[in-house]
């Protein structure tokens, strides 16, 4: 195919919009099939994007947002097509985690959970028990750090079992992964370990084997919308009896 050195101006011309319809369609096919070319396109896009900020701001007409919203409501609900690219090394250790959970740690964890529930939530548990429970453990020490309870009405809560060390300028962020294609979603941000309601309203209902984890992120939450800091505790949901 074309030698590499010829690709860079082509990628730039694609980004600039200089290619004719046929060449543009070729370039789009290559972006989908040729990772190197796709990277060059991204590189040029990032280089030129500073020029976008040199455009004068032009306040849109007052009703533009309404028009956009009304177009959106006419559309079918978005199909959750598979996300492109990385889901991250982060989540790969889940298989290992499951095996670990089956091992000797399980007794200790169950005891911790039972104790926590008895002490802190005896009444609620008696009144309305969760349908799914996840025990979030520290991979290294196998210590249980928190429990996530998902209730039939869609409510999900996270209850810490230990005091987590949160340095200044950092925060605890809670994530869930129910679909590897879509990737992890943030469901809570805490300045310190405390029992909290997680925000899963916009996500599909909680199911068995759904991963929850707590990572240490900059205060205000991960800047990328994906976990960036170390995983403190993680675990998957299991159905209660």
């Amino acid at each position, binding site marked *: 195919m074309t030698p590499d050195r010829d690709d860079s101006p082509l990628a730039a011309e694609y980004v*600039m919009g200089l290619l004719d319809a046929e060449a543009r369609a070729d370039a789009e096919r290559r972006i989908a099939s040729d990772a190197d070319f796709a990277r060059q396109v991204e590189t040029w896009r990032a280089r030129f994007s500073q020029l976008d900020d040199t455009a004068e701001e032009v306040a849109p007409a007052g009703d533009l947002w309404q028009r956009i919203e009304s177009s959106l409501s006419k559309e079918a609900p978005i199909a959750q097509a598979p996300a492109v690219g990385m889901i991250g090394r982060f989540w790969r250790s889940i298989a290992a985690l499951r095996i670990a959970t089956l091992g000797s740690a399980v007794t200790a964890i169950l005891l911790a959970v039972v104790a926590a529930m008895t002490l802190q939530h005896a009444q609620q548990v008696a009144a309305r028990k969760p349908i799914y429970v996840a025990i979030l453990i520290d991979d290294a020490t196998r210590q249980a750090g928190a429990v996530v309870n998902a209730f039939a009405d869609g409510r999900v809560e996270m209850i810490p079992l230990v005091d987590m060390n949160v340095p200044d300028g950092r925060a605890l962020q809670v994530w869930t992964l129910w679909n590897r294609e879509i990737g992890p979603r943030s469901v809570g941000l805490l300045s310190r370990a405390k029992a909290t309601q997680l925000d899963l309203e916009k996500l599909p209902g909680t199911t068995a084997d759904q991963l929850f984890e707590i990572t240490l992120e900059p205060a205000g939450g991960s800047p990328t*919308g994906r976990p960036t800091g170390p995983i403190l505790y993680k675990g998957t949901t299991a159905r209660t009896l």
Partner: protein
Amino acid sequence: MTAEPASQDETSRLSAAEAEISAAIVRCACGDRLALRVIYDREAARMVGVAMRILRRRDLAEEATHEAFLRVWRGAHGFDPARGTARAWLFAIVRNQALTVLRNEQRFDADTLDESHEPDLGAAISRLPETSALRRCLQQLDTGRRSAIVLAYAHGFSHGELAGRLGVPLGTIKSWVRRGLRSLQECMG
């Protein structure tokens, strides 16, 4: 027209915007309509501005921005925060949309575009941050090559329009653009 380089404040404002937009696009992929509104509140005016520079007509610029938001909504799941920057992704969508509108308008009605607005070539470069590698590298190019690249990117000029505007044959324009891009590539690493 003011032509001040972006200040330090502007640079930090942009990096905060970057993080916010990135998170909002990820939330859009989950179906969170409020996240789209966050993007709108933060960037719609700039998006209309980017489209306006290409289309030179406000109604068309808004039309392009409207369509761009629908594309952001539908395409949010394809955004990978690890690969590209969020605002570059967003502005690529509105630029492409503006270019599509431009091509359609030119095809159907050559008179609708307001030719009286001559693009201000110097403004785009002089507003780039002083510290910007793009600014430094563009300034190292010959005037013709620099003009061709800026007019194409910021104002949506085609090769043919560049040839007309800069008064040189089409073949010369194509080679100016290519050589200019190669120099930029070397300069920006």
